[in-house]
């Protein structure tokens, strides 16, 4: 647990096994002993969960001021006190005997499963049975048996015979994730972990229960029977899925990632992560991985080419005047490579990392308020109120949700959410939900009352409502509240800092500022940098279609993520496209040169999470694939404008030498909101967000994970449901001039004018099906 550094806590001195130790008041005996390096065996105790004293393995003898407890006590539930004398198993035969007794009882009903148990080799029960158990078993009866294993969700299996009833899993889902889907049922020998009958354990955080289960009772379906701990090579890594920035550990067996575990970073993810980060990694080994460069020949066919050929073809095409689209998934170093490549090799500021619905207002907002933002998780810990604007924490940045939830549980942190549909997270946080018509959030933001201790978290979807980011910035200025922008993708904050956007150079330096350009030009060893502010992603697409730009360098962009997929596809068809990709995609279909690049696990680098904190990771899997920036360097050399970024380490060094910008920043945008849509009859204003688990490219091939995704539904208000004569589960058809989707209805708390559907889930790919996803009028009828 991270003690709040600003609070001074009283210190207490006690004696454990004859050694004196001083710890802050409130520390548990078991943890004070840890400080001395004395390990008391334990199962249920977990530093981030409330103590329960469920397993009784941690018994020690305790004496306070000469008065001894009559029996050994559970050291994980008793806080230290002055004058305490603790004797652990090391010095007290009574405690030792008690612990051995508890262990014997635990093993009395424990199956002899170690050879087939996934936990074998890293099992606290195995280890502690060896260190603190009797070598011989006295019990000779028949053991309790249960049917095994039971799938409590498609990704978690429960083996009740192995459970030691420590209640770590149930406490986690209740206290940390607020998903009380699993509980302990029955009593006595038959006590077992259970799920509510018809509701499987659908939590975005279920993987954490697998990680903290001290035995092999909860196991992950995908990792089941795949390896033993000694087979695995572990590499510290960072999660590439979202901007929360979880510290992870990647375990690889023979060049294949088999599992990922949450790392321990008290400042960021504590010891948790979400199921996407834990279980979505197979996309790297997907069968359609690109391995060799391809070039389109005169007949319009893609043919395999050698690297020099492909690099030459790419350079020739790009030299005709090109723009750069780099998806929000590039690492900080790669984004820096694209940024430098655009300026130095292509001589343009036409670069944008926002491969999603974006606006010029957003671009100015990012330059003015985000690139230098210093809001952190700590500010959430200390906030008196959190305001969520266009941001669904559980779906879009799950660790931010856990952090808010932690403070909500601890001190009933006040949360306000401005949006059109009440979400599950809003319910869990008992948030004050301000319900507005989609697109009208700005007016609601303007009326919020915050203090200087409040935190405003604004999501990337805020760009979809005109004036919202301006209003949010104005609110922060008026109240002094801290402001943070939380994108969905892991690379966006880094790409912003790297200047992979038309109005900024690396380090938050405005393109329009001559001094800033000189700064960077001297660092890059070039005479000058292009001074004209670059085009945004939308402009790049439309200018290709109108013939003003003839070539495009694309790194990891899915055209269906953008606001106008048809126009993007048309642009890809029209322009000379150089695509840097790991696998075949919509872009490679139209590309003229395809250059395969390394996936995240195959290279080192870092991401900046939403706080701007660097999340470094190392190469986990050896491969021949090169990182984006290495390939960009090769193309740049071919073009005759070297960017000299041969390795990730080089790039990191160069980035570190940039330093902060202390000149003037771009001023905050002041865009006014659009007027409300007037809807009547069957019309409704569409709103949506992406769910954590959906059809995202990085979740390809993860069937078990997909099984825990939330149901695809169309949400309408009770009033609309009554008007349409629809009840829960009946099919609704949402349509506009581009197409339609048909989804089962769910009647919930949503604005009467609005209809909600998931943006990219099975059966509901709004951008592909309707061409729009938010703030647009559609027709909703009973199907």
């Amino acid at each position, binding site marked *: 647990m991270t003690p709040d550094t600003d609070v001074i806590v009283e210190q207490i001195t006690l004696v454990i096994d004859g050694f004196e130790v001083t710890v802050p008041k409130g520390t548990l005996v078991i943890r004070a002993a840890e400080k001395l390096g004395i390990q008391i065996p334990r199962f249920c105790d977990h530093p981030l969960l409330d103590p329960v004293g469920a397993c009784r393995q941690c018994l020690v003898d305790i004496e306070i001021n000469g008065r001894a407890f009559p029996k050994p006590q559970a050291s994980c539930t008793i806080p230290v006190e002055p004058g305490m004398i603790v004797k652990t198993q090391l010095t007290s035969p009574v405690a030792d005997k008690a612990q051995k007794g508890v262990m014997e009882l635990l093993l009395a009903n424990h199956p002899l499963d170690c*050879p*087939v148990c996934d936990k*074998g*080799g890293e099992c606290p029960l195995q280890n502690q049975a060896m260190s603190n158990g009797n070598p011989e078993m006295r019990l000779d009866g028949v053991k309790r048996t249960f049917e*095994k*294993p039971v799938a409590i969700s498609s990704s978690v299996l429960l083996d009740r015979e192995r459970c030691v009833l420590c209640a770590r899993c149930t406490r986690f889902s209740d206290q940390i994730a607020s998903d009380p889907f699993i509980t302990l049922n029955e009593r006595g020998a038959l006590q077992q972990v259970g799920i509510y009958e018809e509701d499987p354990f659908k939590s975005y955080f279920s993987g954490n229960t697998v990680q903290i289960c001290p035995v092999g009772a909860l196991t992950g379906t995908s990792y*089941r*029977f*795949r*390896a*033993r701990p*000694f*087979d695995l090579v572990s590499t510290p890594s960072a999660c590439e899925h979202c901007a929360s920035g979880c510290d992870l550990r990647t375990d690889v067996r023979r060049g294949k990632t088999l599992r990922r575990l949450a790392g321990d970073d008290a400042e960021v993810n504590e010891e948790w992560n979400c199921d996407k980060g834990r279980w979505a990694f197979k996309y790297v080994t997907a069968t359609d991985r690109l391995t060799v460069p391809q070039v389109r020949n005169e007949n319009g066919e893609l043919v395999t080419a050698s690297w020099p050929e492909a690099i030459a073809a790419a350079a020739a095409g790009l030299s005709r005047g090109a723009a750069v689209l780099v998806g929000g998934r590039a690492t900080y170093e790669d984004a820096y490579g694209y940024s430098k490549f655009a300026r130095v090799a292509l001589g343009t500021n036409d670069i944008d990392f926002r491969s999603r619905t974006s606006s010029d207002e957003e671009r100015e907002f990012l330059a003015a308020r985000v690139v230098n933002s210093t809001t952190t998780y700590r500010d959430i810990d200390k906030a008196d109120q959190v305001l969520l604007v266009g941001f669904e924490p559980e779906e879009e940045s799950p660790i931010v949700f856990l952090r808010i939830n932690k403070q909500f549980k601890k001190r009933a942190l006040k949360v306000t959410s401005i949006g059109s549909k009440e979400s599950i997270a809003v319910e869990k946080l008992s948030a004050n939900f301000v319900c507005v018509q989609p697109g009208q959030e700005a007016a609601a933001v303007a009326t919020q009352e915050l203090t200087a201790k409040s935190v405003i978290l604004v999501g990337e979807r805020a760009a979809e409502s005109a004036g919202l980011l301006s209003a949010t910035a104005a609110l922060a200025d008026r109240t002094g509240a801290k402001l943070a922008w939380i994108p969905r993708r892991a690379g966006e904050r880094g790409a912003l800092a790297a200047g992979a956007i038309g109005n900024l150079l690396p380090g938050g330096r405005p393109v329009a500022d001559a001094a800033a350009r000189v700064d960077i030009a001297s660092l890059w060893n070039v005479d000058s940098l292009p001074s004209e502010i670059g085009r945004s992603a939308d402009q790049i697409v439309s200018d290709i279609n109108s013939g003003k730009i003839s070539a495009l360098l694309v790194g990891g962009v899915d055209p269906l993520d953008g606001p106008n997929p048809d126009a993007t596809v048309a642009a890809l068809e029209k322009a000379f496209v150089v695509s840097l990709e790991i696998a075949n995609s919509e872009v490679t279909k139209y590309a003229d040169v395809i250059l395969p690049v390394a996936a995240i696990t195959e290279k080192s680098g870092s991401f900046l999470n939403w706080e701007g904190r660097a999340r470094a990771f190392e190469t986990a899997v050896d491969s021949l694939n090169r990182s984006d920036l290495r390939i960009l360097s090769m193309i740049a050399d071919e073009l005759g404008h070297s960017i000299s970024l041969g390795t990730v380490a080089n790039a990191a060094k160069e980035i570190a030498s940039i330093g902060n910008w202390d000149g003037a920043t771009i001023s905050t945008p002041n865009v006014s909101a659009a007027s409300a849509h007037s809807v009547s009859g069957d019309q409704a204003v569409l709103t949506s967000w992406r769910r954590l688990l959906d059809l995202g490219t990085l979740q390809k091939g993860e069937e078990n994970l997909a099984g825990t995704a939330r149901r695809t539904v169309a949400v309408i208000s009770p009033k609309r449901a009554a008007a349409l004569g629809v009840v829960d589960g009946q099919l609704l058809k949402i349509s506009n001039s581009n197409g339609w989707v048909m989804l089962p209805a769910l009647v919930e708390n949503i604005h009467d004018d609005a209809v909600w559907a998931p943006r990219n889930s099975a059966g509901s790919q709004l951008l592909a099906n309707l061409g729009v996803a938010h703030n647009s009028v559609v027709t909703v009828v009973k199907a």
Partner: protein
Amino acid sequence: MSEHIEPMKKKEISVNDVEFAQIEQNGPKNLFTQMQGFWVTFATMFKKVNTVNYPEVKEPTAERFHGRHQLNRYDDGLEKCIGCELCAWACPADAIFVEGAANTDEHRMSPGERYGRVYQINYLRCIFCGLCIEACPTRALTMTNEYELADETRAKLIFEKDDLLAPLRAGMLMPPHPMYPNTTDTNYYKNEIKSSHPSQEVSN
């Protein structure tokens, strides 16, 4: 302590000072003494022969000779290996590679939950110590007396599961097939299944 030892002065001792032992170099012996020497060779021709004409003739090895490994089956044909990797863990030469997988009702290779999907022993590494045999919790892995393992490529010396599995004997069925009706893996483990049951016969 070293100060008590007088450092040796250079050139105090030279190679030339060392005395060489004289080796006696007698001339050839007479014929009789030479015949005496050949007598041992000659007499051996009439002794009992200990070697055999390998490879035409092969002698059985010692009973407990450590030869090629074998992956055993239960008497109904199901595999004993549960893919636990304990053998791989025990192996000091890192010669064994195992990957487990889950048995399903449709595809059952062994009793219980788990079976060895991939099983390889690299005979370029194996030192035939037998530690793997000791580690195996199900007696799936044992050693045969087979010692003719030489081959001409490295790849051929990595034995796959197919190369190691025991042949089917009478009463055994080729897995995958279901378990003997109304039994559990414990019955198998206690060796209570003596032959396959007609209901286990499924067309694969």
